[in-house]
């Protein structure tokens, strides 16, 4: 399955740090070769990475003092070896988390009459639109309640990386809805006006 535009853009970061492999790498490289905008973005990301890695100088780590403190505290404390007993609980938690994530990803509300889709790769703009992503633990019910409360309808998404395009009826409603979403960090990973 080919990547949508948003996922391609995210994957540029992993092309820039050279961790992308196999088919994914090939797909992103092909897209970059065909799209000058993606190629420019890749240059910027490589620039950011190089700048961040060069920034290292000057940081004073605890060094040998930190190691001495560590040894002192280990000596002082009676060592406790943790048995591998919690594996079962973690497995259950992981299954629940995966289930919730899948439910969120599958959440799709069709809106009869709303035709303002922005298709992947198109430059078409949508008035009073927002873009949002939700945390992995947000349930379909949580998202529905929040969107209804904020007066938003889903006009596209979730994308392959879980991003929704949302529409408000007018500019005031758009601002108010954005504020509502941004005030719910326990559910909303990010929210912003769609540029």
């Amino acid at each position: 399955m080919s990547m949508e535009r948003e996922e391609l853009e995210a994957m540029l970061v992993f092309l820039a740090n050279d961790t992308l492999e196999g088919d994914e790498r090939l797909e992103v490289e092909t897209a970059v070769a065909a799209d000058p905008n993606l190629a420019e973005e890749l240059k910027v990301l490589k620039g950011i990475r190089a700048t961040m890695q060069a920034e290292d100088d000057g940081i004073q780590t605890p060094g040998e003092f930190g190691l001495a403190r560590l040894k002192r505290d280990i000596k002082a404390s009676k060592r406790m070896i943790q048995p591998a007993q919690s594996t079962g609980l973690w497995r259950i938690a992981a299954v629940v988390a995966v289930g919730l994530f899948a439910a969120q990803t599958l959440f799709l509300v069709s809106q009869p009459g709303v035709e303002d889709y922005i298709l992947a790769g198109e430059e078409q703009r949508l008035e009073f639109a927002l873009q949002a992503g939700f945390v992995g633990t947000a349930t379909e019910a949580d998202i529905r309640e929040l969107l209804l409360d904020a007066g938003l309808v889903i006009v596209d998404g979730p994308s392959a990386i879980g991003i929704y395009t949302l529409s408000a009826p007018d500019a005031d409603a758009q601002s108010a809805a954005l504020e509502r979403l941004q005030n719910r960090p326990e559910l909303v990973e990010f929210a912003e006006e769609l540029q």
Partner: protein
Amino acid sequence: MAPTSNADLKVLMQSIGSGDQAALAGLYRALERPVYKFILSKLNDPAEAHDILHEVFMDVWKAAPSFEGRSTVKTWIFGIAYRKTMDHFRKHSRVSVTDDMPEQIDESPDAASCLAASQESAHVKHCMGELKAEHRSAVELAFFEDMSYGQISEVAGVPEGTIKTRIYHAKKLLMRCLQGRIAGALS
């Protein structure tokens, strides 16, 4: 030279699991700097970062016998550091959620401005500081530590899709912020 390959670090972990303090010192010397830098970048307080680094390696010492090697040693230790740093944020009610959009200069970031700004450490540092902690961590792990999205998802304990979403959003904000810095400097 400090061991850096996962195979070397795994050998150290096995020795630590058997109570070998010299192996712990070897692991500490190999990973102290990147882990400390990762913590410090979020807290911006060297004293607090020292304490958290200490706690991380105390946890490594205690939990080494149960390390099963499902993830790489580095990913496992960064995961401990990530959780401890986020716990610290929560306990101290530190405002970590900024992610405000910088003033919009244009509808889409201008690549030439972004490229120029991306090469200036002060601009990159400022714009990274504008991101909220979870988003900043994802970018830092990608660019400081050259981790894949799968490894970052293990460190942060969230699905890979969440990491892609965070990276997508963080990248957009960074681009806009960098463009804004150049435009601000020119005006």
